[in-house]
């Protein structure tokens, strides 16, 4: 499958989030998820917002921080196999545009969800917990860190 690669890009996983239109697509799909949740009759608006943030944060934690390696055979001879997707973005360079965007998004969602849930206590706790789950592993201090050897190999 790697025959015919004309470029020397070692791991395409590092750069596809910089392609044209990814950020806007991400936001649009998030809103699509929210509208689907809103259209279920027994879910009120505050619950819909909390559900959106929860689903988004849990999926983002799984896809960015639990899954390791790339879904193709990369030509970097396995250097990226131990790294999670978050660590592979832009080949490990911190504070690029994509990384900043992906770090700010859960925080903005948290603000919007707090507003729509009228700062209710249970919703706040849930939203805060999932937001921390999504934002804290993205700090540079956690680059390459595997707590308690979970997910190390």
């Amino acid at each position, binding site marked *: 499958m790697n025959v015919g690669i004309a470029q*020397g890009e070692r791991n395409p996983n590092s750069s596809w989030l910089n392609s*044209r239109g990814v950020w*806007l697509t991400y936001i649009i799909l998030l809103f699509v998820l929210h509208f689907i949740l809103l259209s279920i009759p027994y879910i009120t608006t505050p619950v819909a917002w909390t559900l959106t943030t929860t689903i988004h944060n849990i999926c983002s934690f799984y896809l960015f921080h639990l899954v390791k390696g790339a879904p*193709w055979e990369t030509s970097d001879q396995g250097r990226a196999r131990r790294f999670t997707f978050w660590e592979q973005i832009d080949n490990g360079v911190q504070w690029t545009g994509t990384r900043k965007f992906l770090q700010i998004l859960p925080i903005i969602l948290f603000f919007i969800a707090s507003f729509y849930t009228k700062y209710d206590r249970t919703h706040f706790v849930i939203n805060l917990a999932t937001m921390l789950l999504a934002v804290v592993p993205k700090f540079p201090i956690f680059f390459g860190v595997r707590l308690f050897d979970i997910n190390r190999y």
Partner: protein
Amino acid sequence: MTVRDPTPVPEHPSLEEVYEATPFSEAFWTYVNYIILNIFGWFRDFLRRTRIENRKGSAEYNPSGFVPLYQSYESFYTRNVYQRIADCFNRPIGGVPGGKLDLMERVTEDYNWSFNFTGNKITTINLGSYNYLGFANNNGPIADNVIESIKENGLATASSTQEFGNLKQHRKLESLVAQFLGTEDAIAFGMGFATNALNISSLCGKGCLILSDELNHTSLVLGARLSGAVIKVYKHNDMKHLERLLRDSIVSGQPRTHRPWQKILIIVEGVYSMEGSLCKLPELIELKKKYRAYLYLDEAHSIGAMGSRGRGVVDYWKCDVNDVDVLMGTFTKSFAAAGGYIAGKKELIDHIRINSHACAYAISMSPPVVEQIISVLNLLIDDDETREGRKRINQLAWNTRYFRQRLSKMGFIVYGHPHSPVVPALLYSPSKIAAFNREMLKRGVSVVTVGFPATPLVLGRVRFCLSASHTKEMLDDVLKYAEEVGDLLNMRQSKLNPKKPFHETELIAH
């Protein structure tokens, strides 16, 4: 990619390359496409892991106590995306890949995991082979020469060039190549990929700097890595970035010791086969002279195909051949043979003859292949306009301009230089790649469609390779079918050239 300003080139009447920006709707639906493929991929992988579904691909045995050799996640893309459209790739052919190609028809019972031949052959117009000058045929005077040479010289030399593998024929080939290109001397190797991979290390080593274009072919990347030099990559055809890199590297010198570099080699290709773009040779030569670097030009796709006399991009840009230090090319494309060559000054070629890995360890070119190239070169060196060689070169140039003009006027988003025989038209999403391929096959045209990871994620494309063996009628048929399929797939979305029906796109003489 955004629409770039036309590149100002002094005293050359050529045209600019335009890369139209991706329409946002196409990018959005491509991402949705990938997301749906991903969701189904995860679901099917889950079914396969829990053995609800039979695993059809081969999988590792994974006995306990042993570290797994492969991550099954690495073949995720192959299992779930590539396998679904695998009938579009690796099709067995049943004849010589000339202007028309016979494909062996095959059917699949289990969704592309295995194929069966029906025994029929589908005759298609062939837009997938690098048969630029149309020399791919197995009968005719050139083929007769080749058969004669087998009787005289055998099938293989079975020896490396430095031992017994250097025949009189090889020297004749090398002097013909040098005469064709206008250089002092040349040397030929049995494999084009190996020419790049094994010879860059005899030119550069530790302490040298290699500046390589972003989209260089894997053989150049491998050769550069094998040489041990420091490699810096500049953005594709971006002369300002290259100049900035040159200046920064010369000022700061080698890493850590800051000593001056032993030599600086700029590696470019003549025609880039995925984009169809040309290198900006006049600006490169100016830069190279200003900063005293060397230039390595890989003319794999451009030798024989570009230039008014077929001598490649140097001929096209009307530059001096002595300004390019190392001219490399392959015989696989326009010459319908196999192998590669390096041409340049006599000192350079003498050095390569002694120091190259390919000369010391690799078997030299096989005699019938040498004879094929010699016969083709004899035709191409002849400058007479009425003879075969020039007629083919002119036919290819006409085909290129005609096809590209009409295709872009019909509203397709086409990349690359207006005179390059490689024509990529953008399809963007993996499903459209498969659909275009299959629909064109139904109409009797075989094309090559490429997607991720050979191209960037959203920029899947169909790459038409034109040939001198295509007649105007064949190209018209292809264009009409492309119009039909383009409408089916909503491909004709160019804003620079709003779409027009086929009969309204007439040719302007160029």
